[in-house]
C-alpha cells in the first residue's frame, strides 16, 4: 500500500464515516446545505491542521516523533469510544443550518482523532498528502451520510465499531512508531 493510501485509510478510520452516517436521528434526512456546510467546515479545519502542522508543533515546542505518541493515544481513545458507542445517534440539535457546524462539523467530522492525525501526518508525510487524505475521508463520510442516513442502522452500527477497533490498532501503531523513532 502506498504511503498516501495508508494516510487516507487512517484518516477515514479517524473520521469514522459509519458513525457519522448513523448520527442523525432515525428517519431524519439532512439538507444538502447542512451536509455541504459540514463538509466545508471539516475540510477547512483538517486542512489547516495539516498545512500548519509544522508551525503548530514548533509553537508547542514538540518534535513530530513525540507528537506521534500523543496522536496515537488520542486515536486509541477515539477508537475505544467508537467501539463502545458504535452507531449511536447524536442528540443534536439537528435542526437549522447551524447543524453543519455542530454536531456535524464537530465533533462528528472533525473528531479529536482526525485533528491529531492531520497534524501528525501533516508533519510526517507532508500537507498535500494529508489534505487529500482528509478530503477522501470526509467525502466518504458525507457520501455515506447522504446516501444512508436513517437506514441500514444495524450495519452502520457494526461498521462503526469495527472502524473503532481499526482506529485503536492504528493508534497503537502510531504510539509504537513514535517511541521507536529517533
Amino acid at each position, binding site marked *: 500500500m502506498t504511503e498516501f493510501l495508508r494516510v487516507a485509510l487512517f484518516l477515514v478510520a479517524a473520521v469514522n464515516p459509519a458513525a457519522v452516517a448513523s448520527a442523525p436521528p432515525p428517519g431524519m434526512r439532512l439538507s444538502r446545505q447542512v451536509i455541504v456546510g459540514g463538509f466545508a467546515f471539516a475540510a477547512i479545519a483538517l486542512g489547516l491542521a495539516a498545512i500548519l502542522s509544522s508551525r503548530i508543533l514548533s509553537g*508547542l*515546542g*514538540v*518534535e513530530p*516523533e*513525540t*507528537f506521534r*505518541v*500523543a496522536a496515537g*493515544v*488520542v486515536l486509541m481513545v477515539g477508537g475505544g469510544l467508537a467501539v463502545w458507542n458504535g452507531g449511536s445517534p447524536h*442528540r*443534536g*440539535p439537528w435542526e*437549522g443550518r*447551524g*447543524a453543519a*457546524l*455542530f*454536531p456535524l462539523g*464537530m*465533533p462528528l467530522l472533525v473528531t*479529536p482523532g482526525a485533528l491529531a492525525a492531520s497534524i501528525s501526518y501533516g508533519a510526517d508525510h507532508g500537507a498535500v498528502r494529508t489534505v487529500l487524505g482528509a478530503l477522501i475521508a470526509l467525502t466518504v463520510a458525507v457520501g455515506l451520510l447522504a446516501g444512508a442516513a436513517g437506514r441500514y442502522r444495524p450495519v452502520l452500527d457494526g461498521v462503526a465499531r469495527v472502524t473503532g477497533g481499526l482506529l485503536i490498532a492504528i493508534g497503537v501503531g502510531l504510539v509504537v512508531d513514535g*517511541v*521507536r*523513532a*529517533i
Partner: protein
Amino acid sequence: MRRGMLLTLSVWLVGAAVLRTTLLMPHLCPAVSAESSLAGARESAGWIARAQLPDGTYTYEYNRETDTEPGDYNLVRHAGVTMALYQLAAAGDSTVLQTADRGLGYMVANLYRHNDWAGFAGVADVQLGATALMLDGVLQRRLATNDSQYDDLARELARGLLALQLPDGSFLNRWDIQNEQPIPNERSKYATGEAFWGLTLMHRFFPAEGWDASARKTADYLTFHRDSYEKQKYPPWADQWAAYGLGEMATWPPSDANIAYARSLAERFGFLIRVESQRRDSWFSELLHGRQARAAGMGTWVEGLDSLHRLAATDPRMADMEAKIAERVDCGAGMLAARQVSPAQSATTANPTRTRGAWFTNDVTRMDDQQHALSALLNAAYIIDRRENP
C-alpha cells in the same frame, strides 16, 4: 447549538491540557555551540585533574551538601575516566596527558599477566570491563601522541579480552586469579560493548593482525543475541560502547544486520534524549516524567549518538538518520552544558575545587558523571561544528 458546542470544546480543551502536561511537554534543548561544548568537556577534565590523587586514582564521589568524599572505588570507572582524558588529548588538548598518564600508571602497576595476555586486575579477579577500557584508553593515547611505547601492552590487553571471549562472540566477565580460569556463566551487558570497541580500535592500529574477525563475532553477538541473553525487557539495551564500536567499523563496513542494530540503537538514544528534554527540575515534572537523568546516564546517550552519527555520515544505509541524529546530539549536548556547574556557580560553594565543572544529582557527583559528559561534549563538538560551518 451553542451550549453543545461549548461543552464539546470544553471537553476537548481538558483533554488537550492533560496531553500538554503529560506527553506533550515542550522539549527544552538549551542552545550550545561547538566552542561551548568543547569548553564544557575541558571543564570536566579540569574536575578530573583536580580530583586525582598521588597514586593516579581519582576522587570517586563527592557530596556537595556535606562536603565529603565517600572512599569507595571502581576499577572499571577508573579505566573509563582515564580513557575519556585520552579522548580529549586525541582531540588536541595535550594538557590532560599528564593526568591521564598518571591514571594509566596506576593501571600498569596493577596488571595481571597470564600466558601471553594481560589484564587490569583487582584483588581477586580481572574484570573484562576494566581491561577493555584500559585498552580503549591506551589506543586513544596512541591516537593522541602517536607514541608506540604501549603497542605491545595494547596487544597483551587485547589478547586478555580474547581469553574471555566465547565462540559466539560474547565475553565472560571475570577471570579468577586464584584458580587461573574464567568465572563461568557470568557476562556483563556493559563490558561486552567495551571489549567490542577495543577490538575494533585494535584493527585500526594493527590492521594486518586479524582483530577484525573477533570484533565482527562480537558485533553479531550484540546484534542478534545479547538482548535476549541479558533478558532485556525493552530491547535494544542502550549501549554506547556498542555504538563506539559500530562507529569504528563504519568503513569496514558493518553487515546489514549490524546496520539494522545500529539504527535501533540510534532510535533508542534519540527517544531517551527526547524524553529527557521534557523533564524539568521540579516535583511536578518528577511525578509525571521521572527524575532528571544523571550526567553519567545522559552522557552515554549523547556518546552513543556521536558515534552513530559517524556511521550515518559514512554509511549510505544510515544516511537518512544523519540529520536527526545531529539534532538529538545538539539537544543532549545543550542539556549537559546547561546542567554543568560553571566556574561562577562553583565560586559560591563550600568546595569550588570539587564542584566546578561537575554534574550533580541529589548533591552527589561521581567520577563517571564527568567521564561520560566529557566524552559526550567532546564528540558532540565535532557534529555541532559541522552544523555551524557546513
